[in-house]
């Protein structure tokens, strides 16, 4: 039933555009021309670059937050968790617009900096890659924090005690014991953020500049503006295949973790 609801429209879309609207003999030419077009190649590069930036930023921010959560309880734990979880339940559009309010030419940050006399003309904080990364990081942070938190909670505390007892300094315990033991969380968190990033649409569309076109935006333009449904289908299929491959890797990583936890 679920498969019917989710897969049939998708399958019909691909089938209709690629096999009915398109002459079957032209199919491979069509695919090749779409995938090697300048716009698509540019979008693939941009998508990867932004996704990598977002993944790295989310990990660097998420790791300390998850560490804090894993090592505190009571009120402080609840407060931090609340701050992480609440945006998670808010619409992406609301979250994106809230950052646009902050980052815009007349946004809060620029106004504050001008009042403090630090700048004369507003900084270009919005409609560039910086604002895309900020917006996407904010949206994706909860996923990585929760994944890392679960991995850190599973770390056996006596291993850390043992390391201390054997003379290890704080940094040595972190680099040689804690970080390797939370590695599964880092890998799964990075994969899930990357998977979600490459298909992102709303945040880059609203917060990006004219040249920051990601694959999902290109698909939307093909449908809405150029009415090139076949091209859109090819791009969608491409994105879907890449996502599924990454998801397969993610599945294997988390599966291995379960196996290791069981022994």
């Amino acid at each position: 039933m679920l498969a019917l609801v989710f897969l049939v429209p998708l399958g019909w879309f691909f089938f209709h555009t690629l096999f009915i609207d398109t002459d079957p003999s032209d199919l491979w030419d069509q695919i090749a021309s779409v995938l090697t077009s300048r716009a698509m190649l540019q979008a693939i590069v941009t998508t990867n670059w932004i996704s990598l930036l977002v993944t790295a930023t989310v990990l660097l921010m998420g790791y300390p937050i998850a560490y804090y959560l894993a090592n505190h309880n009571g009120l402080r734990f609840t407060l931090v968790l609340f701050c992480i979880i609440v945006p998670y339940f808010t619409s992406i559009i609301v979250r994106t617009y809230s950052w646009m309010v902050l980052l815009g030419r007349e946004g809060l940050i620029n106004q504050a900096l001008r009042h403090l006399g630090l700048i004369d003309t507003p900084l270009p904080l919005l409609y560039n890659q910086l604002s895309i990364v900020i917006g996407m990081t904010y949206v994706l942070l909860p996923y990585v924090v929760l994944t890392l938190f679960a991995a850190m909670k599973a770390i056996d505390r006596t291993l850390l005690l043992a390391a201390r007892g054997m003379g290890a300094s704080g940094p040595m315990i972190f680099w040689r014991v804690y970080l390797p033991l939370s590695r599964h969380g880092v890998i799964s968190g990075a994969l899930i953020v990357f998977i979600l990033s490459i298909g992102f649409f709303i945040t880059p569309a609203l917060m990006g500049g004219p040249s920051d076109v990601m694959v999902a935006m290109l698909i939307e333009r093909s449908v809405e503006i150029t009415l090139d449904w076949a091209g859109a289908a090819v791009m969608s299929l491409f994105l879907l295949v890449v996502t599924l491959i990454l998801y397969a890797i993610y599945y294997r990583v988390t599966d291995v973790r379960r196996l290791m936890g069981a022994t």
Partner: protein
Amino acid sequence: MSAAPLPQGGKGALELDGLTKRYGDERVVDAVSASIRPGEFFSLLGPSGSGKTTTLMMIAGFVVPDGGAIRVDDADLTRVPPQRRGLGMVFQNYAIFPHLNVFENVAFPLRARHVAEAELRVRVQAALELVRLQRFAERYARQLSGGQQQRVAIARAIVFHPSIVLMDEPLGALDKNLRYEMQVEIKDIQQRLGMTVVYVTHDQEEAMNMSDRIAIMNHGRIEQLGPPGEIYERPSNAFVARFLGEANLIEGTIERIADGQAELRTRDGVLLRAQVKRAAVGQAAALFVRPELLAFGAGAGNRVEGTVRRRSFLGSTIRTVVEVGPTTHLTIDLPNQGTGGGPGVGAHVTASWPVVHSQILLD
């Protein structure tokens, strides 16, 4: 990172001076004092909740004492963080790093001490040979049996030549046969390296087999401290007597004391004699005697008569329970000599034992 060298070598004398730990109103460790000699195998033995593990964790530095002091070779370690104490430690669940192989697990304390790679290899190899694991250097913990993991934990605790090694119920997870084998092995390693071991266990046979001295703990206090033979044969109170194996404790009232011996009238009216240290005439007390020191038949010393109520076959011994009076039962252990002898259930018997084998215990 601090560059000061971690303590190494040393003689390994450990002084506990009035160690106390409170959790809320409860004193889980209450004024524990002991002078542990260099090269001594010292056990903390007690039931769960007796404070033995908390005492060990205070020595290791993982638990901060509320009172008292810890000194190693006259250096005060009470406020020194665990990573600077230089003690070896074997944890109950082994605490082997799952992401490192056996070699790197054993090398960990040496890496923490920035030992040069060449020397590190030599020392890890030597430690692995000592526990007979040299062929397993590349394995991971999940590929090892319980006994092998135990050996890794021991190799890791001794590889940096600490003068003192702490062990927290290290054999608790192993089955009985393997446990005895490992006891012999640990004792052997300890003697070869001449190190001081503080060993926590709730298994009295294990403690007696390995230890030079044992501290029996109960409710956070040391009830008695001494060599295994001494605390087994001359327990200072009923708790120690019961905790270290089977004990007969016959309750009664002291009627006379003379020349270090007391006469005790049991509740059933029998008069028995025993060694006594401190007691007063008229005081309620218990007469203690180990079951294996009793014999059937009329001998010199104390003598009682009764009816055999139960007979248990325990392999190397045969245990007989004799009802001497309505409130007094005696347990008698005889070595199994393959003759199937000894009186059967219902038989009327006489049992006797020399006065020197029994003592008056108070409380």
